[in-house]
């Protein structure tokens, strides 16, 4: 295929070295982080031998435990709320006739992707402060609402992609066969949509689990999630305990990303057995 070879990017001078360099910059620090999480000593830069001790320490650290539980509660709630909202938003933007201001609505849904996070964080801080003054409530709901909000676009994308790829005739066939709109949604649309819903909720979960900026601004006293706890630790003494927690988070993220990949891949074959 001499013709296509002319456009082969791999034939461009320096392509391979540049690609390798990029991967190195991306992954070398992460590899080092993982390696030093097994360090025997207190340093995150001087290797003193292998040990599991920082994992044990992190596991036994009550503050880490509390932060982990809080992170999971917030991520799970936010993921559920964001996914439900995203399903509705995706249905509204793919299963209705084009309406006035469609582009505007689309932009609104994806707003958190485009507005600088620090702006959202400050805005939420001020807004919630007003509510706090008015109601006196200082519970978890602020964090859950904030996380749900910025997770919506992440949940929305895979669900919308899935809906757009779906055969509209299927829903019409359902309606033609005496299915009311709700029953068609339950029996035809939702089963088809399921891989997208799962993928979207997992993406939202990871995004929420990872968030620092908005959490840091919105959280009340004592409400530390894992990332904000780690940030707090970094200000004092850095030990490989932070590496250990990071590595654990990394493992969870990688597992979810792999699951996400498998699900979206399985989604192209419309059939499961």
């Amino acid at each position, binding site marked *: 295929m001499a013709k296509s070879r002319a456009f082969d990017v791999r034939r461009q001078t320096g392509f391979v070295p540049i690609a390798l360099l990029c991967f190195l910059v991306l992954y070398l620090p992460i590899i080092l982080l993982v390696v030093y999480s097994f360090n025997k000593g207190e340093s995150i830069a001087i290797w003193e031998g292998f040990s599991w001790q920082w994992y044990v320490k992190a596991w036994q650290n009550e503050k880490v435990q509390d932060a982990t539980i809080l992170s999971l509660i917030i991520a799970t709630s936010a993921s559920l709320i964001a996914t439900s909202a995203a399903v509705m938003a995706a249905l509204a933007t793919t299963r209705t006739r084009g309406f006035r201001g469609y582009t505007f609505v689309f932009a609104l849904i994806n707003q958190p992707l485009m507005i600088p996070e620090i702006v959202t964080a400050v805005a939420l801080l001020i807004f919630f402060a007003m509510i706090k003054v008015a109601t006196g409530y200082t519970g978890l709901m602020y964090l859950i609402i904030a996380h749900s909000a910025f997770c919506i676009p992440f949940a929305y994308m895979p669900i919308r992609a899935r809906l757009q790829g779906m*055969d509209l*005739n*299927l829903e*019409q*066939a*359902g*309606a*033609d*066969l*005496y*299915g*009311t709109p709700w*029953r*068609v949604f339950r*029996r*035809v649309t939702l*089963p*088809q949509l399921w891989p997208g819903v799962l993928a979207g909720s997992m993406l939202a979960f990871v995004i929420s689990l990872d968030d620092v900026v908005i959490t840091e601004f919105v959280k009340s006293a004592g409400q530390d999630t894992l990332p904000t706890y780690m940030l707090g630790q970094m200000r004092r003494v850095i030990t490989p305990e932070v590496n250990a927690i990071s590595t654990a988070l990394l493992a969870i993220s990688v597992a979810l990303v792999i699951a996400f990949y498998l699900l979206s891949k399985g989604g192209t*074959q*419309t*059939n*499961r*057995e």
Partner: protein
Amino acid sequence: MIEISGLSKTFGLGANAFTALDDINVEIRQNEFFTLLGPSGCGKTTLLRSIAGFVDPTSGSLTIEGQDVLPLPPYARPVNTVFQNYALFPHMTVAQNIGFGLEMQDRPKAEIKQVVGEMLELVQMAPMADRMTSQISGGQQQRVALARALAPRPKVLLLDEPLSALDFKLRKEMQIELKRLQSETGITFVFVTHDQEEALTMSDRIAVMSSGRILQIGGPKDIYDHPAERFVADFIGDTNFLEATLQSVAGEVATVTLPSGKTVAARAVQGGGQSGAVTLAVRPEHAVLTKESGLLDGVLENIVYFGTDTHYHITLDGGSAFVVRKQNQPNTGEGFEVGDKVGVSFEAGVGQVLRD
């Protein structure tokens, strides 16, 4: 059964408006195999989807057994559709697909099971009941789509070019199969196709459509032998068009003068004029070729052999072209050669005067 009157559908507004259906009037009878035939974009699918409830007509009325169905959503109409791409539910088995309509009607489980069993037998798919729909062939998917639409016993079955995705041989089989199912179930079939041969072989009646209008409704033989308009004559089969002069009309018999000056009796068209210039349609196989002078005379330009028959291309005196088709018989040298002076004749009543 189905009465449609004054039905129109316009998509878009203002300068972008597109009239998909233009004042459709048709009555489809009980237990009829009714075909909507026309080229793509003629409005036949829009009409079918209006009956199903997926298209909201701009004006007009549509009743099924006397009931006005236009206000009803698709799921409340007593019709089922076989979709062009079948639209089988990929997350369900063959049996679940067939039972879906009954399930949505909240029929008892035992009844669903029984009807699904009967339907599987009817379309000869019983051994495949538990397969997923992606594990069966195109022809089998077609049968499942049919069974799924027939299972709830609709008053009307709508078929949207259901055979177009099948290969030639399978299509022939399914044509016979569809006719059998229609007579066995006694359900009214409304069938959409752009394939004139399919329409002629399967239909009780055909409505020929073009640009959102129904041009002619009639039985296959009626439509083929007596097309009322040039479009119908041209779209269905091959036709010779002759510029002729109408002398007089008496009932169904029109007397026309051909370009050769000879006069012949032809069939008059409903709603046509009483005299003046008209177009006369003559099917190639309805005309005969002679060595002697005929109704029309000309020169044989080309002979094309088709196996079952032979086409003789003639240039008539005056310059227009004419084709005569003759079925081939064993061992008969016809004796015509390119360049021969020949005569073309057809019997009285064979030519059809067209409405212009």
